[in-house]
């Protein structure tokens, strides 16, 4: 079940508002497509990220994907535990597998992202294409 408490980007990242900050991660669809995550490269605390710009890389044995930030702002926390044990991203992409926390320039940006239902449709359209 795609969690309804957050918004989604076309690049399969999610953004959840938590106390004025935004927590970011990848979706279950993305982790499934990638396979076992072996490595993830994230921005550092204090870095600036921009919506839909590359912020890092996520690697599996057979694939490597750019990570696109769903929001613009300053990185205030990075999930070092997931970096150390990337299995968490596969097992719990919406919870323990979170990637970064951002202090957003504007929460309004999230309106440009998709709802859970819209994201599910986006994924199933992709499935129909393949």
């Amino acid at each position, binding site marked *: 079940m795609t969690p309804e408490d957050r918004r989604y980007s076309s690049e399969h990242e999610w953004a959840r508002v938590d106390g004025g900050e935004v927590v970011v991660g990848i979706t279950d669809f993305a982790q499934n497509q990638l396979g076992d995550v*072996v*490595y993830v*490269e994230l921005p550092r605390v204090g870095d600036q990220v921009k919506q839909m710009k590359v912020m890092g*890389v996520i*690697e*599996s*044995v*057979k*694939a*490597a994907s*750019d990570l696109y930030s769903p929001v613009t702002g300053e990185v205030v926390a990075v999930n070092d535990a997931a970096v150390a044990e990337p299995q968490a991203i596969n097992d719990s992409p919406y919870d323990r597998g979170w990637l970064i926390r951002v202090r957003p320039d504007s929460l309004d940006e999230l309106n440009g992202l998709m709802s859970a239902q819209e994201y599910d449709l986006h994924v199933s359209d992709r499935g129909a294409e393949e």
Partner: protein
Amino acid sequence: MSFVPLTPAEAAAMLARVGVSSVDDLFEVIPAAVRFPALDLPPGQSELTVSREVRGLAAQDRPTGELACFLGAGAYHHYIPSAVGALANRAEFATSYTPYQPEISQGTLQATFEFQSLVCDLFELDVANASVYDGATALAEAVLMAERLTRRERVVLAGSVHPEYRSVVETYVAERGTELVLGEVAATDGALREADVAALLDERTACCVVQQPSFFGGIADFSALRQACDRVGALLVMVCNPIALGLLKSPGAWGADIAVAEGQPLGVPMSFGGPWVGLMATRERYVRQMPGRIVGAARDAQGRRGYVLTLQAREQHIRREKATSNVCTNEALLALHATIYLSLLGPTGLRQVAENCYQYAHYAAAQIARLPGYAVLTPEPYFHEFVVRCPLPPEELNRRLLADGILGGLPLGRFFPELADCALLCCTEMNTRAEIDKLVAALAAA
């Protein structure tokens, strides 16, 4: 001879099964105007005829085995133990493919893992790749890697880095906006001296490249340079000679961040310039930015140990335009030569070769320095190469030496116009005292 086993009867059966009357039908999609061109090539010949002709070409050459060789400058005449070829040329190694199916490629994979380990031991660095094309492209890749790691675009090269290596770096960075800064080398007061490259570093510098032994043979102390690099946050990249590392302090011990070398001296025939093998190693924290294939250890479901290509997500077949490099092929078979060579020699044998090179070079230099009209310009300490200023143009000198069966040193004018009256001489364990004495006599008589 085309090695095609197909008989007319088999071809007929296959054509029938495919449902066409002739093979030509399968090429209908080729535009008619350009289909089936007549190639102006000699007709195919038997192995007997072709081998006679090719041997005839080879017979026109005078290889180093027939001459007393004093030519080095990045390609070296060393002894190759017979076990190296006997093992490396086994068809199971030579005719196998890249080990993408590890279950049936453990021979290649384990040998590659051993190669990587040996390079790490030789360089005293944490991780090595499975080889790249040659020392020069290894250096170019190291420079690109340093730029990625530091996100800087300025590169300082010591003037005593091999000029052709520098040239390859220039080609690789040509369109990237990299600023390449070259240290100066000059012959002053009868000695070749280098301006201190540390003075050229600044906060925009991605890396400083030095070579040990230098192109001119010299051995330097890099402690101060390492500190200078630390002050500006630049990486230290060292180009090494793997034979010299049997004796000399390793790049890891000097604090190098990336080390590269040409592996040809390690049991690989010179073969007129290739194929050779580029060695590349770095610190553990940089491993994901290192290009090229890498083999890692792994286990199977039954707990058996095996080896597998790993960290492939950096490479072109996955990362495509974001790859660390476009390299696909490595130099697997030549890396195997090097692995076998190092296995046979071990630390004792490698040190013996290094010491032989050192001693013969020093003996030769000492005799030459005593000849009127000649001067040795490479100051001590040096390893197995040294620059000699000659009383005649070195090209002319070499013609006379050749008539005596001697291959003289490299005339330096092609790379350093101000050293046009100089040659770079090299001695290895393949030279004998008698050969050197004969060289010295010939130089005296010229």
